[in-house]
């Protein structure tokens, strides 16, 4: 600590250079944190899912539907506690540029199935009572500037025509991985509008014992194996993980770019720091002459490098964390729960430490080993 002023004075000598170096470290780590978070968010989504929920969909593919009549048979299966169902209707709002999920759901059982979606009791009541009403996520309300009680009209794509709903409730989520920009409305309303074909896009089952997930899933699929619409049942986590893999090689790509970015900026930063250290040869010689031991000089140079890289890391990583938290970023609904993870922060600081070693070690050793006479000759 005795040398704090000396280190600060050194940093302040080329203020502009110090500023630039810190900024480029900060930028590199900001970018690193952002890219890494895309990967961890997709990964987290693929891992997410309640152990007590199973999803049953048509075995032929995600675009095929199941008969609504399956609901009662599913409910009667041993080990199944509750059943709900939903349909994807793929409607658009306005110019259709902002994509959002809109489902027709069986209101009561669906809200009961997902306690993670939190709705004030009076709004829930109003939603359940009114057949043409809908509830929307709090983010969606913001995005389109809707109000509670407003009528909104969506344009159907799968089911043509205009779909008008009254917003009777706004839900928040207790788990960030659940989208807070969906619109949910009454399945019965959909069924009636399209002439009562009695179809459900998929079923969600709550099972009594999470350890029996595999057995129950098999029982469901066996039940419908020889029907006109065979099913494929898996845990919610398996269902989500297929969605996560739909991103393809995005994760690998992000990681590769992230590494290249970090490496590129580290190169130029380390370079700049070494150059500025080299300029100080004569100064270090003077310090040695007045009695500074080699070890202290080594330490001083390392501390200076550490201050620069760690300040940069703090700004870059902290900035990423705060920025995404404050703006509630979720990539227009594609990456719910986008938040810089502690693991990413630790890795980021690890990189900063590596950078400190890479850029500080050579100049610090040079400083410690400097032959005084030779260096001083250049001074005089």
């Amino acid at each position, binding site marked *: 600590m005795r040398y704090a002023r000396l280190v600060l004075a050194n940093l302040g000598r080329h203020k502009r250079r110090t500023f630039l170096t810190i900024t480029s470290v900060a930028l590199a780590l900001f970018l690193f944190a952002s890219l890494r978070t895309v990967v961890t968010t997709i990964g987290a989504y693929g891992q997410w899912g309640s152990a007590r929920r199973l999803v049953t969909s048509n075995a032929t593919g995600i675009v095929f539907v199941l008969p609504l009549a399956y609901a009662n048979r599913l409910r009667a299966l041993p080990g199944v506690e509750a059943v709900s169902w939903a349909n994807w209707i793929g409607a658009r709002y306005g110019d259709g540029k902002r994509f959002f999920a809109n489902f027709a759901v069986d209101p009561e059982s669906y809200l009961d199935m997902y306690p993670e979606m939190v709705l004030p009791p009076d709004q829930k009541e109003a939603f359940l009572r009114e057949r043409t009403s809908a509830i929307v996520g709090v983010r969606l309300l913001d995005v389109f500037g809707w109000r509670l009680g407003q009528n909104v009209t969506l344009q159907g794509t799968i089911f043509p025509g205009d779909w008008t709903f009254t917003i009777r409730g706004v839900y928040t989520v207790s788990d960030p991985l659940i989208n807070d920009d969906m619109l949910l409305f009454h399945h019965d309303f959909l069924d009636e509008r399209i002439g009562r074909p009695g179809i459900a896009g998929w079923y969600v089952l709550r099972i009594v014992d999470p350890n029996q997930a595999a057995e129950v899933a098999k029982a469901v699929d066996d039940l419908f194996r020889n029907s006109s619409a065979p099913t494929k049942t898996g845990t919610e986590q398996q269902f989500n993980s297929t969605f996560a893999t739909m991103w393809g090689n995005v994760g690998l790509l992000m990681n590769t770019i992230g590494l290249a*970015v970090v490496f590129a900026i580290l190169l130029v930063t380390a370079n700049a720091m070494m*150059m500025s250290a080299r300029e100080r040869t004569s100064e270090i010689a003077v310090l040695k002459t007045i009695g500074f031991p080699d070890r202290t000089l080594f330490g001083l140079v390392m501390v200076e490098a550490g201050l620069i890289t760690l300040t940069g890391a703090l700004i870059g990583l902290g900035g990423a964390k705060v920025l995404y938290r404050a703006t509630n970023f979720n990539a227009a609904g594609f990456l719910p729960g986008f938040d810089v993870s502690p693991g990413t922060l630790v890795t980021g600081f690890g990189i900063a430490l590596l950078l400190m070693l890479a850029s500080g070690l050579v100049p610090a050793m040079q400083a410690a080993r400097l032959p005084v006479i030779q260096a001083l000759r250049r001074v005089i």
Partner: protein
Amino acid sequence: MKIPIIYNVRSVLQRPVSTALTALGVALVVAVFIGTLALANGFRAALARTGSERNALVLRRGADSELSSGLARETASIIAASPHVAVGTDGRPLVSPEVYVLIPLNRIADTSQVGNVVARGVSEQAWSVRANLEVLQGRRPESGRSEVCVGRRLVDRFPNMRVGDKLRFAGRDWDVVCHFSAGGSSFESEVWGENEQFMPVFRGQVFQSITFRLADPGAFEEAKRVLEGDRRVTVDVYRESAFYVQQSQLLDRILRILAILITGIMAVGAVFGAVNTMYAAVASRGPEIGVLLTLGFRPRSVLASFLAESAVIAVIGGLIGCVLALPVNGIVTSTTNWASFSEVAFSFRITPGLLLAGLVFAVVMGVVGGFFPARRAARQPVVEALRE
């Protein structure tokens, strides 16, 4: 008077390590710049090539993708009878009413994971309506049989895709009888069979889209107006090429924004690095600059000389970056096109224009990064510079 370029060359050679590091930093930025844009390019090319200017595509009114559309047989007959549809050599109209569904297939790489692959049921005419189609191996599926033809990009990514294999989907076995290419378009990521075979096993008596060859490619607007105004059908008509470009817009925009954002931030970092390096270079060459000024070189020449030096380092970096990025050209990757929910395989595409853009980008980084240090060098008072 200009300062000879050899002066810059020698001064660069004086500091080989730091020059190399700066150039390498620029190189990596340029490589990432080219790489990410090549990805966006490849994706766009795959979808842009999918449609032909000469074809029109019909969907149910309001449907925004083939997946959400549905058209009755009657609609197909009405459109086939339209005078705007070109007639083939055999006298039949060049029209293909198609069934379009997604089927889940296990991947080769990780069999616990599935990809959503497009299965397209086409008419016999589809092979002449669609441009650039070529059967690479085997023969076309015959009418009335459970046979499919597989796009060449699927072959290595999913099992049972070789000619002679049996592919199982929709509860039936299908004989794979051929592989086809389609000029690098997204059709190459699809499984094609006969529409009449696909209809009963999938969604019943509906088509998802109808594609036809225009009798007069110039009369698209006219055909669109007539068909959309026809009371018997409720359809939207698109030019096929424009439709597939529109289907790629969402992902294309995401990729491009990503590319610009990432390389933008990287570029700022690299420019800062270049500024730093050049400042250090200027600072350590104080007396040299003093001598140059004493010899009578104008401050302007000193400025130009330092700028040139920085730009040249950046260009070298840019060239290395291009070389680093080149190997990704042609690498096949895949992702989901969220607009149609289907998996599309495409390859990174590096074009000469992209390489040039990368080089220009490098020069800009060099000039911006060198400007302030160069100005400082040029403005140094002679006496002070010499004293150092």
